[in-house]
């Protein structure tokens, strides 16, 4: 690696060693990927969703593979806030990357409760507010489709978050994602992450039933990548660039080339999701690959690449 290359980024005031996160729901609560890679190499880490009460999640099947993708409907299964604090937080304290806690809830109060309880924790750099989970009856995407509700959740969580950064995770399943992004930024979001999964369905033609127990699930993986790139570029142009709000881009990233594409589209950092399931050390390979790309194209500072799309 060329030493004088700088792939560190400033993300809403936090310094990241590199622009690569692992995405919520694909890397556990803390150090679960440590069997496969040195997680201290990561720029950032986003926990599995945390809700006030523990959630069992949906019945199985919870996943199904599709062409170049997969559907999941886990149902925000998680250990709940108390157990997260007791068991997972101590592990997070020893982690080098910036840690964001993904927060979900059925009511605004539930989001606020989780954020308030964790806002004083040193181990945590900030929060990712999940207003885009497609797989729960209440909360999640029901907030994320309505700009007024997004603004309410965001401003309430922002008040509770103290000095920590507050990032809002957007759903692609809306008529105008820029309108939602604008509402979040106006309400105080320090950063935006997009895209969450696309609501989708697979039918078993022998039984005429949906394959997933939840009927629908969220589509992720390489299949959604070009749509994610488009939406990130749109939000960058319409909202993020002018407001100076960084985007964490995600959606089907498997390789360094994919990551670079997202950065050119306007993402300040990227998150690896589904690819962690297949290649649990791929984030480390992507970091190396970004380095090589910058060396090959003589880009001394990766910040030059953010939003550098030429039209």
């Amino acid at each position, binding site marked *: 690696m060329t030493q004088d290359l700088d792939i560190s980024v400033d993300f809403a005031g936090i310094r990241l060693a590199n622009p690569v996160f692992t995405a919520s729901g694909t890397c556990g609560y803390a150090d*679960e990927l440590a*069997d496969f890679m040195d997680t201290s190499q990561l720029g950032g880490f986003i926990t599995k969703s945390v809700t006030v009460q523990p959630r*069992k999640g949906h019945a199985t099947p919870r996943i199904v593979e599709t*062409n170049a993708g997969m559907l999941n409907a886990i149902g925000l299964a998680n250990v709940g806030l108390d157990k997260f604090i007791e068991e997972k937080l101590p592990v997070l304290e020893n982690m080098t990357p910036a840690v964001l806690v993904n927060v979900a809830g059925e009511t605004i109060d539930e989001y606020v409760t989780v954020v308030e309880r964790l806002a004083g924790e040193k181990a945590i750099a900030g929060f990712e507010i999940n207003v885009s989970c497609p797989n729960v009856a209440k909360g999640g995407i029901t907030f994320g489709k309505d700009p007024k509700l997004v603004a309410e959740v965001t401003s309430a969580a922002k008040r509770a978050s103290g000095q920590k950064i507050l990032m809002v995770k957007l759903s692609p399943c809306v008529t105008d994602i820029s309108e939602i992004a604008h509402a979040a930024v106006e309400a105080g979001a320090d950063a935006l992450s997009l895209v969450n999964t696309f609501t989708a369905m697979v039918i078993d033609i022998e039984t005429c039933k949906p394959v997933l127990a939840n009927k629908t699930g969220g589509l992720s993986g390489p299949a959604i990548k070009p749509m994610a790139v488009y939406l990130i570029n749109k939000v960058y142009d319409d909202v993020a660039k002018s407001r100076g709000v960084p985007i964490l881009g995600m959606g089907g990233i498997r390789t360094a080339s994919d990551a670079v594409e997202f950065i050119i589209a306007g993402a300040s950092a990227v998150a690896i999701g589904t690819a962690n399931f297949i290649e649990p050390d791929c984030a480390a390979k992507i970091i190396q690959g970004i380095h090589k790309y910058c060396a090959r194209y003589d880009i001394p500072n990766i910040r030059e690449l953010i939003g550098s799309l030429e039209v």
Partner: protein
Amino acid sequence: MSQKHSSSNKGVFDAVVSWNRRIGPEFYRLALEFSGAGAEAIAAFRPGQFVQIDLSTAALPPAEAIPQHLADGARREILLRRPFSFADVDVRGDKTHAEVLYCVVGPATLRMTTLSPGDAISVIGPLGNGFSVPAGKKVALLAAGGMGAPPLQYLAKVLTAEHPDVDVLAFAGAKTAENLPFERPLDAISQQLGFSLPEFARHGVKSQVATDDGSAGFHGLVTDCLAGWLGVGPGSARDSTVIYACGPEAMLARIAQIAKQSRIACQVSLERRMACGFGVCQSCAVECKVPDTNETAQKLCCQDGPVFDSREVLFKR
């Protein structure tokens, strides 16, 4: 090959295909060779554990070799790895050899049939918890339903090698004789002596076959075959008997019932759709009883299992 960064022995390893042999109409055995860190990690593989194999780069067979019912599915690209339990593991020098017994059921296993000697494939493992031998057991009954046979084949080998004081007997069932995932049954003399299936006989383990249609062995379900044997077996030996079962969930539910009625310890190996295999995707939930309550909790097949105590599991109907 990834470096290890924790105390566990799991990792991502490259394996080289030694051979890939058809053993029945739909069944194949694939032999893999691991070197270096992979050889060390897979040498520690216990019966009932599993690995995740990346088949996305394996080629499709020629169109005429694709069964009609898989023709449409074959056009789909493979994204996720597929879980397999090894049917055999053998350490020879600084290499570890492992065998996958598989059935062609979809686009990934269809691609698996084209793997040739010398091909490299990526394997994550060893994953999950395998079978264990509770203290004081003298009789081990292995119950395999259909494609549940592979981990029990390896278990037979390990039990006889590590626990010479334990008597091992295997029961293997399938819909028809053709659906039994074993090499051809042994000759009449061996069968009279109680050795039906070569994969068990080679470890000195007797076996009984059951088929739903009676085309081989006992005419009926393997669970009935096992229950019948228990009915005539020595009642006093129950405390020192353990059942190990792997197969379809309905079969495992019935085995659990038999074990409960007979007060016999029982371990079942479950199967769930899973994306990762190492606890992060949360897809492979298994509903389990919480001891001393009426509550249930979701455990993960990949991490808490795939082998569970049969008393703990709420089987899917």
